[in-house]
C-alpha cells in the first residue's frame, strides 16, 4: 500500500472515530455540564448531526472501494494481544450512515416529543449514549469490543425502556429486555470463546475477512480443523460439535437482540419506553444489530446452519405477523411487525440472500422508524384529548381512534407511505428489498426437500398478512370517525400535526421510503446500488422475478380492500373473537405466558430450593457437627467428672477408709491389741485351712 492511501485511510479512520465519539461527547457534556438544562437536547442533536455528516463522508470514501482496518494493542494477556481498532468496509460504513441518519430525525423529533417531560435532559443523555454504543458497535474490529458494545446498546436500551422508572410496567419490561438479551449475550460470549480457542484471535477481519481463518477451516470426519497461523505450528482442532455450539450461540445472540423466536417476547414489552426511543432503538437500529452480526460472521456458517437460520427467521416472520393481526395497542402492532420483518432479514441470510437481507435492513429502518414516529404523534394527540377532557383511556388503544386523517393530514400521508413500503408496494423501497428476499427464497428452495419448500411459501403468506395488519392499522386510526366521539359525544378536540420538529423528520423519512434513494429502476432490486455492493454472484434471471412481485402486489391489494371494508366501512367481520385461532393470535401464541408460568416459576423455585438446601443441608450439616461436638464435649465432661475424677475420688476415699479402718487398731487399749492379734491368728489359720 503506498503512503498516500495510507494517509487518506488514516484520515478516514479519524473521521469515523470522530463520528462515533461525538455522541459520547454530547453524553459527557450533558452529564457533567448541563445538568437539567433544556440545552441538552440541542447538544445531542448537534452531535448526531455532526456524526451524520462525517459518516456520509466516510461512506463515500469507503463504499465499494477497499476495506480499511487499523488497530492497536489494548492489552496483553499471556501471549495474546487484544487489539482495539476500526474496521471499515461496505457493511460497517453502510450501518454507520444508516444509524446516524435515522438517529438525526429521531433526535429532532424528540426535542418536541419530550419537551414537557421532567426527565428531558436525562433522556438525551441516554439517547446520546445509545448512539455512541451503536455507532461504535458497527465499526469495531474485534469480537471482544464487539461484544462490549453489543452489551452497551442493550444497556442503553434498558435505560430507555425504563425511562419512566416509577411505572411498574416499564421497569418490569426493561428487566425482561436485559435478561433476555443476556441469554443471547452468553450465547455470543460462548461463541467468541470457542472461536478464540480455535483460531487464537478476536480480530474480525482476520477471522471473517476475505480468505479469513474461518473460511479456511474445515469440518472433516467429526473434527473442525483450523489452518495454523504460522507454518511451524500445528493447526488446532475441536470436535465438530463445537462448530454447531458456536453457531447455536450466535443464533441465540441474534434471536435475543433481533427478537427472533424463541427470545422475541421482550420487544413488545419494550414499547413501554418513549415512542421516539421505540422508533430508533426498537425498530430501526439496535434490533437490527442481530442481522448485522450475521452479516459480520457470515462466512462462518455451514449450509445446514444456514437452513436453520432460514427456518427460524421464516417462522418468526409468520408468527409475529399472525399476532400483529389482532393486537389493539398501536405500538404493540408495530413491535410485532418489526419482529416479523426482522424474521425476513434473518431468513434472507439463511437462504443466501445476503445482500437482500442488508438491503431490507436499510429500507426497513426508514419505514419502520417513520411508522413509529407517526404512532408517537397519534398517541400524543390522543393523550391531549385524554388530558383536555379528563378521560380514563389508554391512549395507545386503536379502538379509541379513527378519522384522524383530516386532523393530521401530514401524519396520515407519512403513515400511508411507510405502510405501503412495509407491505412492499411498487414504487416504495420496501418493494425492492422484500421482493428480492422472496424471489431468492423461492430460487433457493428449488430442488430442495419438500419441507424446505414451506419456507418461501410461508414467507409469501406472511407478506399478505403484513398487508392486512398494516391496512387494519391505518384504516382504524385514520379512516372512519373518531371512536371516542361515540362514547363521549361532547369531546373537545384541538389536535394537529404539530411543531416543525415533528413534521421535518416525517418528511425526511417519508422521502427515504421511496424508490429513488435506492434504485433508479423502481421494479428491479438488482439494479439497486445497495444490492450490488454486497451481491456475491449474479444470479440468472428466473421466472420468479415476474411472478412474485405480481403475486405479492395483486393479492395485497385484495387483502387491503377487504380490510378497507372491514375497518373503514365497518362491514362484516372476518373471524369470531372467541375462535381458537383468534385467541392464539390475541394471546401472542401463549409464549410469554408459558415463560412466565413455567420457566420463571421454575427458576425461582430452583433458587428457593438451593437456599433451602443451603440452610438445611449444608448449614444443617455444620449444625449437626456442632451438635455432635457438643455431645462429645458433654460426654467428655461427664467422663471427666464421674470417671477420671471418680477414680481419683475413689482412690482418695479408699485410702481414707483404710486409714480409718486401720486407725481403730491403734486405740491404745491392750484388750484391743489382744483381740486383734487373736483375730489375725484365726484369720491366718482359716486362710491356711482353705488354701490347703
Amino acid at each position, binding site marked *: 500500500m503506498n503512503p498516500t492511501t495510507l494517509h487518506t485511510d488514516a484520515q478516514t479512520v479519524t473521521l469515523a472515530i470522530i463520528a462515533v465519539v461525538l455522541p459520547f461527547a454530547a453524553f459527557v457534556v450533558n452529564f457533567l455540564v448541563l445538568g437539567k438544562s433544556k440545552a441538552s437536547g440541542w447538544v445531542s442533536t448537534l452531535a448526531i448531526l455532526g456524526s451524520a455528516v462525517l459518516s456520509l463522508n466516510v461512506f463515500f470514501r469507503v463504499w465499494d472501494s477497499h476495506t480499511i482496518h487499523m488497530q492497536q494493542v489494548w492489552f496483553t494477556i499471556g501471549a495474546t494481544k487484544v487489539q482495539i481498532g476500526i474496521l471499515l468496509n461496505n457493511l460497517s460504513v453502510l450501518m454507520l450512515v444508516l444509524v446516524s441518519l435515522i438517529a438525526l430525525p429521531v433526535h429532532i423529533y424528540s426535542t418536541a416529543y419530550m419537551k414537557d417531560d421532567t426527565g428531558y435532559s436525562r433522556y438525551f443523555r441516554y439517547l446520546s449514549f445509545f448512539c455512541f454504543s451503536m455507532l461504535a458497535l458497527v465499526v469495531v474490529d474485534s469480537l471482544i469490543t464487539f*461484544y462490549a458494545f453489543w452489551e452497551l446498546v442493550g444497556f442503553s436500551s434498558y435505560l430507555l425502556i425504563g425511562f419512566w422508572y416509577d411505572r411498574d410496567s416499564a421497569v418490569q419490561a426493561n428487566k425482561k429486555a436485559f435478561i433476555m438479551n443476556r441469554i443471547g449475550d452468553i450465547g455470543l460470549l460462548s461463541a467468541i470463546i470457542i472461536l478464540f480457542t480455535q483460531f487464537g484471535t478476536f480480530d474480525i477481519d482476520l477471522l471473517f475477512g476475505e480468505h479469513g481463518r474461518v473460511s479456511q477451516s474445515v469440518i472433516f470426519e467429526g473434527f473442525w480443523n483450523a489452518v495454523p497461523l504460522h507454518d511451524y505450528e500445528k493447526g488446532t482442532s475441536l470436535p465438530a460439535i463445537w462448530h454447531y455450539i458456536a453457531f447455536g450461540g450466535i443464533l441465540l445472540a441474534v434471536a435475543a437482540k433481533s427478537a427472533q423466536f424463541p427470545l422475541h417476547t421482550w420487544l413488545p414489552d419494550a414499547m413501554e419506553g418513549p415512542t421516539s426511543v421505540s422508533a430508533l432503538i426498537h425498530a430501526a437500529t439496535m434490533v437490527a444489530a442481530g442481522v448485522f452480526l450475521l452479516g459480520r460472521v457470515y462466512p462462518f456458517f455451514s449450509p445446514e446452519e444456514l437452513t436453520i437460520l432460514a427456518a427460524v427467521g421464516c417462522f418468526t416472520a409468520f408468527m409475529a405477523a399472525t399476532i400483529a393481526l389482532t393486537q389493539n395497542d398501536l405500538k404493540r402492532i408495530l413491535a410485532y411487525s418489526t419482529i416479523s420483518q426482522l424474521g425476513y432479514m434473518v431468513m434472507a441470510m439463511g437462504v443466501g440472500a445476503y445482500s437482500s437481507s442488508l438491503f431490507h435492513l436499510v429500507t426497513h429502518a426508514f419505514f419502520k422508524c417513520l411508522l413509529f414516529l407517526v404512532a408517537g404523534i397519534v398517541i400524543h394527540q390522543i393523550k391531549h384529548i385524554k388530558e383536555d377532557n379528563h378521560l380514563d383511556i389508554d391512549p395507545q388503544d386503536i379502538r379509541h381512534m379513527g378519522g384522524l386523517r383530516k386532523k393530521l393530514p401530514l401524519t396520515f400521508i407519512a403513515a400511508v407511505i411507510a405502510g405501503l413500503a412495509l407491505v412492499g408496494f411498487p414504487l416504495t423501497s420496501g418493494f425492492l428489498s422484500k421482493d428480492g428476499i422472496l424471489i431468492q427464497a423461492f430460487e433457493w428452495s428449488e430442488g430442495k426437500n419438500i419441507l424446505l419448500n414451506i419456507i418461501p411459501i410461508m414467507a409469501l403468506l406472511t407478506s399478505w398478512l403484513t398487508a392486512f395488519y398494516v391496512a387494519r392499522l391505518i384504516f382504524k386510526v385514520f379512516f372512519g370517525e373518531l371512536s371516542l366521539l361515540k362514547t363521549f359525544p361532547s369531546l373537545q378536540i384541538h389536535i394537529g400535526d404539530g411543531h416543525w420538529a415533528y413534521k421535518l423528520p416525517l418528511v425526511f423519512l417519508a422521502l427515504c421510503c421511496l424508490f429513488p434513494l435506492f434504485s433508479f429502476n423502481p421494479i428491479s432490486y438488482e439494479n439497486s446500488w445497495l444490492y450490488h455492493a454486497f451481491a456475491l454472484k449474479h444470479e440468472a434471471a428466473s421466472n420468479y422475478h415476474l411472478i412474485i412481485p405480481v403475486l405479492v402486489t395483486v393479492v395485497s391489494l385484495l387483502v387491503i380492500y377487504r380490510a378497507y371494508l372491514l375497518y373503514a366501512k365497518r362491514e362484516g367481520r372476518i373471524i369470531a373473537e372467541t375462535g381458537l385461532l383468534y385467541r392464539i393470535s390475541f394471546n401472542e401464541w401463549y409464549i410469554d405466558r408459558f415463560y412466565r408460568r413455567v420457566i420463571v416459576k421454575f427458576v425461582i423455585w430452583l433458587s428457593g430450593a438451593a437456599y433451602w438446601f443451603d440452610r438445611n443441608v449444608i448449614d444443617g450439616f455444620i449444625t449437626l457437627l456442632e451438635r455432635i461436638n457438643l455431645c462429645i464435649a458433654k460426654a467428655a465432661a461427664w467422663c471427666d467428672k464421674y470417671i477420671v475424677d471418680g477414680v481419683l475420688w475413689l482412690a482418695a476415699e479408699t485410702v481414707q477408709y483404710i486409714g480409718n479402718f486401720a486407725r481403730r487398731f491403734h486405740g491404745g487399749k491392750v484388750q484391743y491389741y489382744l483381740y486383734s492379734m487373736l483375730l489375725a491368728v484365726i484369720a491366718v489359720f482359716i486362710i491356711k485351712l482353705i488354701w490347703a
Partner: protein
Amino acid sequence: MNILTLLIFTPVLFGFIILLLPSSMRASFKYITLLATLVQLGLSIWMYLNFKTGAPFAGISHEEQFQFVQKVPWIHLDLGAAGKMQIEYFVGIDGISITLMVMTCLVMVVAAVASWEIKSNLKGFFALFLLLDMAVVGVFCALDFFLFYTFYELMLLPLYFLIGMWGGARREYAAIKFFLYTLFGSVFMLLVMVGLYLSVKDPATGNHTFNIIQMMNPTNYINGSVFSTLAHSTILGMPARSVGFVVLFIAFAIKVPVVPLHTWLPDAHVEAPTPVSIILAGILLKIGGYGIIRICLGIFPDVALSGAFWIGLLGVISILYGAFNALAQRDLKRLIAYSSVSHMGFVLLGIASNTAEGISGAMMQMVSHGFLSTMLFFLVGVIYNRVHDRDIYHFRGLGSLMPRYTAYVMVAFFASLGLPGFSAFVAEAFSLAGAFKSHSTNGLLPYWMAVCGSVGILLSAAYFLWTLQRMFFGKLSLKGGEIWKIALTDISLRETLTLLPLALIALGLGLMPSLVFDKINDSVLALVQFIGIK
C-alpha cells in the same frame, strides 16, 4: 528501612498512638486511622509505580526475582542434634501480590471511612482495625511460611472481636461460626506447614527452612521425607502430597469461600458492621484465592495439575449455586454475600484452567471484586444506617427519593453483573476463555465447564436487576412510612467521596485492563510454565 516492612507495620504504629491517647480524644481516632490507611495507600501506590515488569522480575519460583525484598533472620534456634531452626522475616512481592496489595490498601481506606458509623468503644475498634490492617497486608507480602501463618492467624483475632462486639443482633453466633470455620482450616494447615518444614532443607545452610520459594523447588526436598516428590510416602493410605495439597486447599477454600465451605460467609456478613463487611468481602476472600495460587499451586504444582478438574468443578458449582442462592434472598446484604460466592467461583475456575488467560482473568476478578464488593457493602450500609432495615421488600421506588444513591447502586450492580466497560467483564470473560481453552492447550478442564460458568453471568443479571426493580424503581413505598422517608436522605459528601473513587476505579480497570495485566503478566506466564513443567 525496607518500604515493604514500613508498609506492613505502619498501621500498628498508628494503632499504638491510638492506644496511648486518652479516651477523651476519641473523636480523633477515626482521623488517625484514616491517616494510617492513607499513608499506607500512598506507599503502596509508590510501589506500584516503581514495580518493575519483564521476565527477569516474574517472581513465583525465583527468589531473586522478587522485588522490595527484606530477608532477616527472625528465630534461629540451635536444636543440637536436630539441626538449626531457621525462621526468617522474609517479605517481598511479585506480580501476583502487587495488584492485590494496592487493592487491599485502597479498600482499607474505604473501610476506614465506613467506620464513621461506629459509635461505641472507639479505642478498641480502631486499634483492632489497624491490627487487622497490618495482618492482611502482611499475608500478601510474606514469603516465609511461618511468617505467613503468623499473619494469617493474626487476622482472625481482630476479626472475631470486630464482628462479635460491634456486630448485629446475632453477632456472637456469627463471630464464633466464622472463627471456628477458619480455625478448622488453619489448624490442619499448621500440620502441613510443619511437615513441609521437616521435608525441606535450605541448600545454602543445610537447615530445615520455612522459605516458601524453596519449598517450590523439588530438589530441596530431603530424600524420603514426607512431602518429597520422589518418595511417594502416604498418610493414612493416601499419597502424602495429595493430602498436603487438599488440607491447604480446604484452609484457603474456606476463605474464598468455595461451596460447600461457604456458610460462614452470609452469617458473618449479615451480622458484621459495614467496615468489617467491606474488609471481609474486599480483602479476606482474596487471601483465599491468593493462598491457593501462591501456596497450593506453588508448593504442590503436581497435585494441582491432577486435581484441576475437581477445582474447576468446585468453581462452576460455586458460580451457579451462589447465584441461585442470591436469587432467593430478601435480605440485601445476604444477597450480596451470596453473589460474592458466585463471583469468586470464577476465580477458582480461572485458576484451575492453568492457562495464562484463565489465571490472569482470575487475578483480575479478585482485584475487581475487591473494589466492587466494597462498593456494594458500603451501599447496603448506607440505607442500613439510616433505617436499620435491609429487607428488599420493605423498600420500593427509592429511585425517586434517593436519585444519587440509586445511580451509585446502578453503577455497582451493573459493574458486578459484568457490563463491559467495568472491570468484572474483562475478568469474567477471560476466566471463561481460559477455562474453555484449557482443554485444547493442557487438557485439564472439559469444555462444558466454561459454558456452564457463563450461565452464572446470566443469573447475576437476574438477581441484580430484580433487586433494582423491586427496591429502587416503581412508585415510592416504604415499610416505615413517613419516618423512613425523612430518615432516607440522599448520600452525603463523605459517602460520595468514598463511592466515586471506587466507581471510577472499576471503570478505569474496565477500560484499561492493562493497569492490572501489565503488572501481572510476567508472573502469570512464569506460573503457568512453572506448573506445566512438573
